[in-house]
């Protein structure tokens, strides 16, 4: 049945967006995770990239998370000489997580997830209507 492939493709899309949401929530949760050693590095923001993957058993190309990398944006410095993570000059490195960017990313992931869900429902109802032909 061809429509099951459509269902699989949408499910793969939802799974990929789910991973994206997970990474975004990690970033937001760690927005204030500083180092415990003097002059140490704080939490580095994680990024998600998507890629295509040929699903040989189905013969279609589905989406997948190709790589979870780190954001190379330099850390900002905050002057806080009494902090345990402060270096010899009294500066603490703070994570390169921008809550605004994370929120926008989250909205985008949510919209894409919703779109996939709608397609899934559309494919499902097409399948259901075909099966319903047997009723009469």
């Amino acid at each position, binding site marked *: 049945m061809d429509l099951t492939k459509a269902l699989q493709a949408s499910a793969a899309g939802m799974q990929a967006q789910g991973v994206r949401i997970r990474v975004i929530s990690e970033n937001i949760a760690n927005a204030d995770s500083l180092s415990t050693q003097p002059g140490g590095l704080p939490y580095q923001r994680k990024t998600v990239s998507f890629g295509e993957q040929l699903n040989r058993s189905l013969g279609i190309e589905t989406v997948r998370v190709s790589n979870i990398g780190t954001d190379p944006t330099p850390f900002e410095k905050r002057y806080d000489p009494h902090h345990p993570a402060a270096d010899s000059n009294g500066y603490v490195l703070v994570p390169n997580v921008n809550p605004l960017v994370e929120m926008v990313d989250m909205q985008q992931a949510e919209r894409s997830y919703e779109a996939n869900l709608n397609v899934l429902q559309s494919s499902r109802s*097409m399948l259901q209507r075909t099966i319903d032909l047997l009723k009469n």
Partner: protein
Amino acid sequence: MDFGKIPLFKAIGERLGFLEARQNVLSDNIANVDTPGFKPKDLKTESFGNLTAAALQKLQPAVTDPHHILPASASTGSAAYPLETKGGNSEETVNGNSVNLEEQLLKISETSFDHQTVLNLYHKQIGLLKTALDRGGS
């Protein structure tokens, strides 16, 4: 009685196959809405004129021996639907992705609507046959 030999049922079957294949391609486009460099795909729709011209011009080799192999283009049945990639439109983002979500969702609903129409047509036709068989059309 073979339903596949009734032209209308054959046409309905082919149309359903096409619509399901199109739904596959479109749902893949939506799944890849955030994939860098992804270009949306769609199935090529043939015009009626082209199809009839192709059907009239095609010369089929005769199979006079069971060991003869027909060329792939001559084989009938569920032929693969040709894909076409659309890209480079004004919707292309910086990462090279040119999927327009609204356009794709519109196509999805169009496919779903067509699918329902064809199924209803099938249903009506079966009802007509039932009436002819005096079992009462539903």
